[in-house]
């Protein structure tokens, strides 16, 4: 049972919703490992990927997910588009809406922009990242990765390290992991932690040694280049020294701790390259694999609801 028209954030999902998505995603993990990966769950449906902010990974993951399910997939980038000519988000969405897509995957640089757009269109909308607000499919793919590695998705200690303030990935993960009854810690310098974070059901730490202690899962976040040059942290090398994850710092975590990163990585800034490549510890590539499966599950569930609505109308 997944009674949602859109997937705009983790905020509105119940435990049951999350489990439904992950359970279905498991079947797609199996499918994706076969030679013949096609199904026809989305046959006849049109999926438009609308990325107002450029993205390679997320967009190709959604594109592949849609294609494997048999949808007609169109990518709509904003480079050189009318959006750059002053058209508003809503106008662009209305224009696309007139082409009768069934599924709209949207990324936008402004928090709340995807929800705003969802109010104005007739199709199912999936938030592929809005500003610093939410990135629900990233949190879901992280959850699937954790569940497969740890055998469960609750009663774990998860440390999220780095630029929490500017990260939609962190927000969605905090919401999801909290909803599934995990202990969540955020670690970073005060300049990279958002105000009031301690009231969001997480523990706050300003150093890796105490923050990583006893962690089952360590999630590293990307630090944007423009934030390293004295604006929020003094330099990349000081940041790496204090907050970059290496084998030595990781010793504070549990011996079987896994290391995650939403990508793209800055080797030598937030994570040591050797550690990132250690397949016994790092699950970064697995996250990418789970991403396609989770997105297939989300597209499939929303399409089922879409068809249900259409049948009810007919």
């Amino acid at each position, binding site marked *: 049972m997944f009674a949602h028209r859109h997937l705009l954030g983790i905020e509105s999902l119940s435990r049951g919703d999350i489990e439904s998505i992950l359970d279905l995603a498991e079947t797609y993990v199996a499918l994706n490992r076969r030679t013949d990966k096609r199904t026809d769950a989305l046959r006849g449906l049109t999926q438009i990927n609308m990325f107002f902010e450029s993205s390679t990974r997320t967009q190709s993951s959604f594109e592949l997910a849609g294609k494997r399910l048999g949808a007609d997939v169109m990518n709509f980038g904003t480079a050189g588009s009318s959006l750059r000519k002053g058209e*508003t*988000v*809503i106008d662009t969405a209305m224009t696309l809406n007139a082409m009768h897509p069934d599924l709209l995957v949207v990324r*936008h640089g*402004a*928090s*709340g*922009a995807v*929800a*705003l757009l969802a109010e104005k269109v007739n199709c199912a909308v999936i938030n592929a990242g*809005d*500003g*610093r*607000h*939410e990135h629900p499919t990233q949190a879901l793919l992280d959850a699937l990765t954790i569940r497969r590695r740890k055998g469960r998705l609750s009663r774990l200690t998860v440390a999220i390290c780095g630029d929490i*303030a500017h990260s*939609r990935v962190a*927000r969605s993960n905090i919401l999801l992991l909290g909803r599934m009854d995990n202990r969540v810690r955020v670690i970073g310098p005060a300049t990279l932690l*958002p*105000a*009031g*974070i301690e*009231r*969001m059901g997480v523990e706050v730490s300003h150093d890796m040694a105490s923050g990583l202690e006893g962690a089952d899962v360590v999630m590293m976040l990307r630090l944007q280049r423009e934030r390293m040059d004295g604006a929020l942290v003094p330099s990349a090398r000081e940041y790496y020294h204090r907050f970059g994850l290496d084998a030595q710092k990781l010793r504070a975590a549990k011996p079987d701790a896994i290391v995650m990163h939403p990508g793209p990585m800055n080797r030598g800034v937030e994570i040591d390259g050797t550690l990132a490549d250690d397949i016994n510890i790092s699950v970064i590539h697995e996250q990418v694999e789970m991403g396609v499966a989770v997105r297939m599950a989300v597209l499939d569930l929303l399409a089922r609801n879409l068809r249900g609505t259409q049948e009810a109308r007919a």
Partner: protein
Amino acid sequence: MTTALLNARLVDPERGTVAPGGLLIAADGSIAARLGPDDRPEAAEQIDCNGLCLAPGIVDIGVKIGEPGERHKESFRSAGAAAAAGGVTTMVIRPDTEPPIDTPESLEFLRRRAAEAGPVRILPMAALTRGRQGREMTEMGFLLDGGAVALSDVAAVADTRIFSRCLAYAAGLGALVIGHPQDPSLSAGACITSGQFASQLGLPAVGTIAERIGLERDLALTEATGARYHADQISSAAGIAVLERTRASGLSVTAGTSIHHLTLNVLDIGAYRTFFKLTPPLRAEEDRQALVAALADGLIDVIGSFHTPQDEESKRLPFEEAAPGAVGLETLLPAAMQLYHAGALGLPGLWRALSLNPSRLLGLDTGRLTPGAPADLVLFDPDHPFVLDRATLRSKSRNTPYDLQRMQGRVEATWVAGRRIYAREAA
């Protein structure tokens, strides 16, 4: 023609009383006499107020009208109609137009256009610096001669040296400078007050410390230059603390706040509702409560609507990109009644902040029910309940945060200089 307003409850901010009685209005548009409950004077026109409240008309400092530049958002005519229906008898209008009111010539244009607002009184403010750019001072002397009642950039003048010179020069002219206390480098790019809620929404945020720092600076410069300074909007407990210390030190400054900050808080933004995007942004509930207390204690002198019309296109955008501001001329009185019904302030206390104090600040003789004062009056029912439907607003723009909210308090009639300019049509 003389008019007798009978059977009213007179809300007198000067005496601090609410008493049954009436008013006799002279032919010249001034108040001729206060009447007792049983007085029945000779008058050409007798109006029965049905026991409703009769108070001085509201003097609203900081109204934005879309002229020049944005007449599609609000014109003098539409603003005048909204003001009359809201019991606002004097609008002190902002210079943050396009282009800004920063020369005697643009002020002259404004005066001609303002005639359209009808009988509601219009008093213009003029910019403190050219183009509101914060670089060169305007011709303050000419602007004052041209009728500007105060000088304001409606934003912080970022450069402290330039602001200091502006204050010093204005002090020499005896001009009132209305500042916008805000540290501009802290508040740059922010659209919400920082805290847990802002972090959940993932919006660029600023703390109330920006107001505190801005106010500390402005008041230090005021002390140094001897200027007459009024802070347009104090919105936080941090700002109130500064104000309290300054008053205790004996420096005479005044401060206002907006009706929105007195009745709403940051959580009202909910799911990125852009009608709640204001400048300064809505604060935490503790700040709102501190503001109400400061108003009751007389630390805050003035309540304004900070009427800022924005069309649908400016608001139908992601929160960060949407234009700030809310219309308020027609909702100022009912929203203020929330404070009355909550027991925070009595009607005379509210009318000090809505009418008497702003009048005194600008050297006007309105805001009083004394014989000789202009008969600028509002008759209202403080209890009448209704649900606000923004489609009924008279403003060209209907960006009110109170849409669909249950409110109490309705304007029955408004007079300016003894002439009735608004009467509610019986439903």
